[in-house]
């Protein structure tokens, strides 16, 4: 018998069907990958197992955990199962911990809730759990607070909490989605090791096929609350049957068609740029110290080219972007756009500024919710000396919306009426409307589901060819950068450590750091699709 058996599970929340006849099983010592896009019901399935569902939720079917029928358990029984028999790791390590309690107290709490032991003993065991999650006491004492740790370290604390009582089943809901590639690889290795050591069952939920492919023994693919494909990972990747799974696989490794004709002339020249931040002052009248976020960076972007910039969080990518856009003054070097400086007399050079636009990561946070699309899209007009008015303005908005695949009527809607992918199209329309030469894409597709991401990448490739656009594509996702850029720069700690044609850099990395990144990036198995 399986450790966790889910049989014809259906879930309704206030009458709205969320899950339909979901069935699968997890065995001890095995890793089950649950894959699906947002809204596929993968997280809700996990919360059903713990019965941590929102108000108005109604489950039917059967969930059995080590022989116990979860759906008939009382709340008291469920509390003794949660944390003791099932541990859970969540997506967002930055907010998953209580900011006011030490990590020691939070890990020890798992033990204190379930076992009648002294606080001192619980702390000793918490230290052991943290040690197992690779947070040794010497470097990370129990008295640390969450804000003193990085995202990856916090995720280790959450893992230590989940495994402190050596549960039979561990559920990890997108445990590495918010983390950098190298940290992701470390966390996945850790989970794999813990599964082997404790003979636990692991239910690993992800939207990323490549992450799961490396790790899972079995796979479940979900779409709109239903399981569409189910089987051992090894054989499934070679022979996916359901059209949705195949589409998902295709989208994950999608490479858009591009003509990719770069001119010889440089559009943007970055020369020995240095960006210092003033840090805290030591003592009351002490000297200020500086943090060098960008150190002596030089590169060119040629007209019509698509250049990738990869690196982990904190490497200086975003600082460099702000400097290129003329939002912040640099402390050394110069940035020239078509021969003109982007920053003159302590102000952004407007002549240059209107020829560059940017698309940000978050399709939810980067729009004013009280404006209609028409106003949102036409916002960059304020950069023009003679902004368009009346019919001309309306025509420009319609043209921009239509060029990104939206309808003319969409201009009267508000942003909440659109999905994440549509919002990102609107962001691109906003960037296109004043016909810029350079578009900076700052993690522009990172928050999107794979199939939507593939569509947006196709759109970008198409627009690039049609309008002869130049792209600076900033991302931590190597596979995306690989699919859409001609050249790539690798950035680490404020410096460019390697650069060259994208395929050459990723196939034969020279710098150690690039090698690390490439090795850490999850890849789909060869022969898939």
């Amino acid at each position, binding site marked *: 018998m399986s450790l966790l058996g889910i049989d014809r599970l259906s879930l309704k929340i206030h009458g709205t069907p969320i899950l339909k006849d979901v069935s699968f099983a997890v065995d001890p010592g095995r890793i089950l990958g649950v894959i699906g896009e947002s809204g596929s019901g993968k997280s809700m399935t996990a919360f059903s197992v713990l019965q941590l569902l929102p108000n108005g939720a109604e489950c039917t079917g059967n969930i059995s955990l080590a022989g116990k029928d979860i759906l008939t358990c009382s709340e008291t029984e469920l509390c*003794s199962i949660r944390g003791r028999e099932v541990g*859970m790791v*969540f997506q967002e390590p930055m907010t*998953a911990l*209580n900011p*006011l309690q030490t990590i020691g107290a939070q890990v020890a709490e798992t033990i204190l*809730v379930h076992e009648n032991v002294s606080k001192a003993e619980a702390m000793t065991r918490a230290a052991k759990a943290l040690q197992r999650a690779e947070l040794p006491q010497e470097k990370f004492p129990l008295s640390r607070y969450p804000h003193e740790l990085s995202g990856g370290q916090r995720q280790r604390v959450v893992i230590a909490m989940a495994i402190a009582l050596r549960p039979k089943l561990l559920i990890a809901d997108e445990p590495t989605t918010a983390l950098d590639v190298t940290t992701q690889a470390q966390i996945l290795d850790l989970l794999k090791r813990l599964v082997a050591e404790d003979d636990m069952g692991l239910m690993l939920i992800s939207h990323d096929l490549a992450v799961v492919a490396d790790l899972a023994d079995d796979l479940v693919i979900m779409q709109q609350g239903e399981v569409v494909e189910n089987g051992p990972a090894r054989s499934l990747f070679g022979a996916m049957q359901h059209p949705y799974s195949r589409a998902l696989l295709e989208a994950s490794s999608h490479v858009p068609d591009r003509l990719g004709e770069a001119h010889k002339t440089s559009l943007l020249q970055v020369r020995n740029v240095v960006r210092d931040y003033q840090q805290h002052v030591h003592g009351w009248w002490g000297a200020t110290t500086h943090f060098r976020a960008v150190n002596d960076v030089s590169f060119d972007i040629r007209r019509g080219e698509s250049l990738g910039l990869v690196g982990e969080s904190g490497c200086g990518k975003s600082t460099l972007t702000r400097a290129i856009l003329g939002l912040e003054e640099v402390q050394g070097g110069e940035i020239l756009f078509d021969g003109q400086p982007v920053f003159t007399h302590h102000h952004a050079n407007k002549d240059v500024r209107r020829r560059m636009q940017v698309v940000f990561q978050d399709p939810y946070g980067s729009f004013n919710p009280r404006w209609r699309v028409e106003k949102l899209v036409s916002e960059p007009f304020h950069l023009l000396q003679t902004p368009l008015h009346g019919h001309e303005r309306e025509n420009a908005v319609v043209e921009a919306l239509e060029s990104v695949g939206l309808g003319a009527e969409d201009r009267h809607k508000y942003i909440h009426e659109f999905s994440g992918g549509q919002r990102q199209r609107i962001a691109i329309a906003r960037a296109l409307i004043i016909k810029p030469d350079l578009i900076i894409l700052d993690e522009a597709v990172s928050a999107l589901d794979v199939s939507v991401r593939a569509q947006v990448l196709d759109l970008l490739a198409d627009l690039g060819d049609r309008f002869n656009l130049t792209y600076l594509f900033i991302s931590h996702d190597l596979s995306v950068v690989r699919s859409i850029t001609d050249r790539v720069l690798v950035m680490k700690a404020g410096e460019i450590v390697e650069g060259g044609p994208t395929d050459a850099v990723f196939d034969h990395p020279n710098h150690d750091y690039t090698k690390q990144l490439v090795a850490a990036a999850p890849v789909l198995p060869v022969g898939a699709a």
Partner: protein
Amino acid sequence: MLRYFLKRLLSLALSLVAASVVIFLALEVVPGDPAAYMLGLNAQEDTLNALREQLGLNGTILERYLSWAGGLLTGDFGISYTYRTPVSEMIGDRLWVSLPLALYALTLSTLIAFPAGIWAASRRGSYVDTGVMGATQLGVAIPNFWFAMLMVLVFAINLRWFSAGGFAGWEAGFLAGMKSLTLPAIALALPQASILTRVMRSSLLDTLSEDFIRTARAKGLTRAQAMWRHALRNALIPVLTIMGLQFSFLLAGAIIIENVFYLPGLGRLVFQAISARDLIVVESVVMLLVFAVIVVNFAVDLAYALVDPRLRRRR
């Protein structure tokens, strides 16, 4: 932590200096000569001058500011223009009524608001929640002087449990003093408790929807345990802010309630001093209230740091 403390302390000192300058200048530009007011319409010019000299009204603005501010530092608030007694004595007497009243009202409001807010938040959307929210709506809407008069009618005139007004004095014993402050404190606490309940409830509901509450539940904590151990302390920050503001208000804003109950408090003193154009008393009381507000804010800042380790960070 020490650095945070020193920084707060420096900001406290600077705020006090800035406030004293503003108060002094504001009263300087107010028309009306206290000496002329005291001596009446037919006063002789030389008598007026003599009185101005005696009151310290002559001299440059800077001299007068420095002598006033210097006096404040040594506890010498000057002499009241109308009563001819040291202002410090007058304020001292009144403070012994106003300060206990404010503390009493704040304690009552906290004792009502914390349980009510927590109760409503833990049963969100239930009849309890609706009931508590309705009651707080009423509590904010009812003017406290009207409620005070209602209480006088019921508890003083009909039931004869309390006196209708006046202050027994602390010489009559602690309990007698507290008894005469009870009705005013309730009248003051009611609207404050209503506001605080709403803040407590919404802050707690915000915290309860945070990710770390879900983490706590996944560890096996019950809903109630997750709330007491994880949500409550996180929810306290906005509540502390409001409590700080309320205390300052209670100390200074009790004018109407003090009048309803004939309490010899600071509010009544300011009221009388303004009508008598006793500027030195007004200046001193306002300065004292500003001092109280700033010190309370300082205390609230320190309380933040006690609650939230992120503020203690030495960076």
